[in-house]
C-alpha cells in the first residue's frame, strides 16, 4: 500500500471516531449549556448566563420531595446492591469459569429484558400481594437491575484473585471475617466502591421501573417526565444537569478507581 493512501485511511477513521464522539456528547453538552442560559426557548444565540432556572427549582417544593426520594432510593440501592452483588461475585469467583459464566448470563437477564416488561411484572406482583406502592417497593425493584452491574464489575476483579491467599490466612488462624477484611477487601475494595457508584448512577437515572413501582410519589426522573408532558420550562435543563452531574461524576470516579474497561 502506498503511504498516501494509508494516511488518507487513517484520516477517514479519525474523522469517523470524532464524529461519533460528537454525536454522543452534543445533546448532553446542550442540556448543560441551556441550564445556564437566559433563553426561554432553546435556540442559539445565547442570551447571557443565569442561575435563575436553578433558583426556580430551589423554590419549588415538589423538587425537594423528589430529591429526597431519589436520595433515599439511590442510597439504599447503593448499600444493598453492593452487599448482595459482592457476595454473589465472590461466590461465583470460586466456581469453575464455565459455570460462573452461565450463571452470570442468567443473572444479567434483567438488564437485557426491556424495563417496560420488568416494571409491569413487578407492578402486577405488588398489586396481587396488595403491597402499598412507594419508596419501599422501588428499592427492591431497583436491586433487580443494578445487581448485575455490581456482580460483573467485582467478578472481573476477582477472576484474577488468588484464592490460596485466603486459605493461607485461614490456616494461620484468621477468622472468616478477618480474612475477608484483611485479604479480600484491600484487593477488591476499589472495584467494590466503583461497582457501588455505578449501581447508584443506574438507579438514580432509572425512569421506567420507578414509574411503575412508585405509585403516586416522584423521584427526579419521574418529576422530569411530568415536566416534559406539560410545558417545556428550561428548569428541566437544570434538573437534567443535576442528574447528569451525579451520574456522570460518579461513573467517572468509579471507572477511574475500579479501572474497569468493558
Amino acid at each position, binding site marked *: 500500500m502506498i503511504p498516501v493512501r494509508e494516511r488518507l485511511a*487513517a484520516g477517514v*477513521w*479519525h474523522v*469517523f*471516531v470524532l464524529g*461519533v*464522539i460528537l*454525536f*454522543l*456528547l452534543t*445533546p*448532553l453538552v*446542550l*442540556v448543560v449549556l441551556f441550564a445556564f442560559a437566559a433563553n426561554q426557548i*432553546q*435556540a*442559539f444565540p445565547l442570551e447571557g448566563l443565569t442561575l435563575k432556572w436553578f433558583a426556580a427549582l430551589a423554590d419549588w417544593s415538589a423538587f425537594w420531595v423528589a430529591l429526597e426520594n431519589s436520595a433515599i432510593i439511590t442510597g439504599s440501592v447503593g448499600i444493598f446492591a453492593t452487599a*448482595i452483588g459482592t457476595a454473589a461475585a465472590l461466590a461465583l469467583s470460586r466456581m469453575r469459569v464455565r459455570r460462573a459464566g452461565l450463571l452470570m448470563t442468567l443473572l444479567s*437477564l*434483567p438488564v*437485557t*429484558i*426491556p*424495563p*417496560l*416488561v*420488568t416494571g*409491569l*411484572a413487578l*407492578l*402486577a*406482583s405488588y*398489586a396481587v400481594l396488595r403491597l402499598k406502592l412507594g419508596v419501599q417497593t422501588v428499592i*427492591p*425493584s431497583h*436491586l*433487580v437491575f443494578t*445487581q448485575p452491574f455490581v456482580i460483573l464489575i467485582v467478578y472481573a476483579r476477582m477472576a484474577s484473585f488468588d484464592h490460596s491467599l485466603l486459605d493461607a490466612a485461614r490456616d494461620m488462624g484468621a477468622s472468616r471475617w478477618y480474612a475477608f477484611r484483611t485479604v479480600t477487601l484491600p484487593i477488591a475494595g476499589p472495584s467494590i466502591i466503583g461497582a457501588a457508584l455505578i449501581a447508584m*448512577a*443506574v438507579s438514580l*437515572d*432509572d*425512569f*421506567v421501573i420507578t414509574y*411503575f413501582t412508585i405509585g403516586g410519589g416522584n423521584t427526579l426522573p419521574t418529576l*422530569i*417526565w411530568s415536566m*416534559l408532558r406539560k410545558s*417545556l420550562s428550561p428548569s428541566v435543563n437544570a434538573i*437534567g444537569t443535576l*442528574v*447528569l452531574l*451525579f*451520574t*456522570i461524576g*460518579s*461513573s467517572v470516579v468509579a*471507572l477511574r478507581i475500579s479501572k474497569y*474497561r*468493558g
Partner: protein
Amino acid sequence: MFGVFFVLPMLYLVVMSFWRLRLYRLEPAFIIKNYALTIADYGESILFTIALAFVVGSLTTLLAYGFAFALRFRSGRWGDAYLFITLVTLFGGYLVKIYAWKTILGNGGILNTGLMTLGLIDEPITWFLFSPVAVVITLIHFLLPFAVLPIYGALRNVDPRHLEAARDLGARPRRVFRDIVLPQTQAGLVAAFTLAFLYSAGDYVTPRLVGGPNIQMVGTFIESQFVQRLNMPQGAAMAITTMAACVLFLLLMVAALRATLRQR
C-alpha cells in the same frame, strides 16, 4: 433476591396473561382471548415495532462496530480516552437524552436553525421531529455506548499480530476482516444487536416523547393497557407476545449470521 423480585414476577406475568377481567377485578382463569385479541388488534403494531427495532439494532451495531474497531486498532494512545468518554455517556440521563433530542430536532431546534443559517435549507424540515426518524436517532444515541462495550470487549481479544501475519501473507484488508476479525467478534456482535434490538422493541418513552401521534409502537399500547385501561391480563398478553416475537426474530437473525459466516 433475583428469584423473588425477578423470576416470580415474570412467572406471574405469564400466568396472569391467561386470566380474565370481570368488573375491574382479576379473575384466575385459562382463556386465550387476550392473545387472540393481541394478534388481531395489535399484530400490525408488533410487526412495525420489530421492523423499527431491527433498523435501530442494525444501525447501532454497525456504528458501534466501526467505532469499537477504530478505538481498538486505529486510534493509538487516544483509544483509551475515547473509550472512557463512551463509558461515561453510558450512565445517566435517559430522559435527559430524549428531551435533548426533542429540542435539537424541533422546527425551531438547533439542527433546523443551524441548517437555515448555513443556507442549506430555506424553511425548517418538519419530519425531523415527531416521526420514526426522530425515534431511530434518539434510540441509536442512547444505545450506542451499550453496543460499543461488548464489541470492544470481543475486539480486545483479537491479536493485532495475527492481522499483520495475514497481511504479510498477502491477504487483502477485506479478507483479513472477514476471516480473522469477524469470526472472533461474533459473540460481541450478537450481544450488541440483541441488547439494542430488545431495548428498542420494549421502549415506550422515546416514541411517546419524540415519535408523534402516528407512530404505532407496541410499548405505548402495553403501557396504556396497564396504566389507563387497567386491563392487566391484556397488557401482559401483549407484552409476552411481543417478547416471544422478538426472541423468534433474534434466533432467525443469529442463524442467518452464522450461515453467512460459515460460507466461504
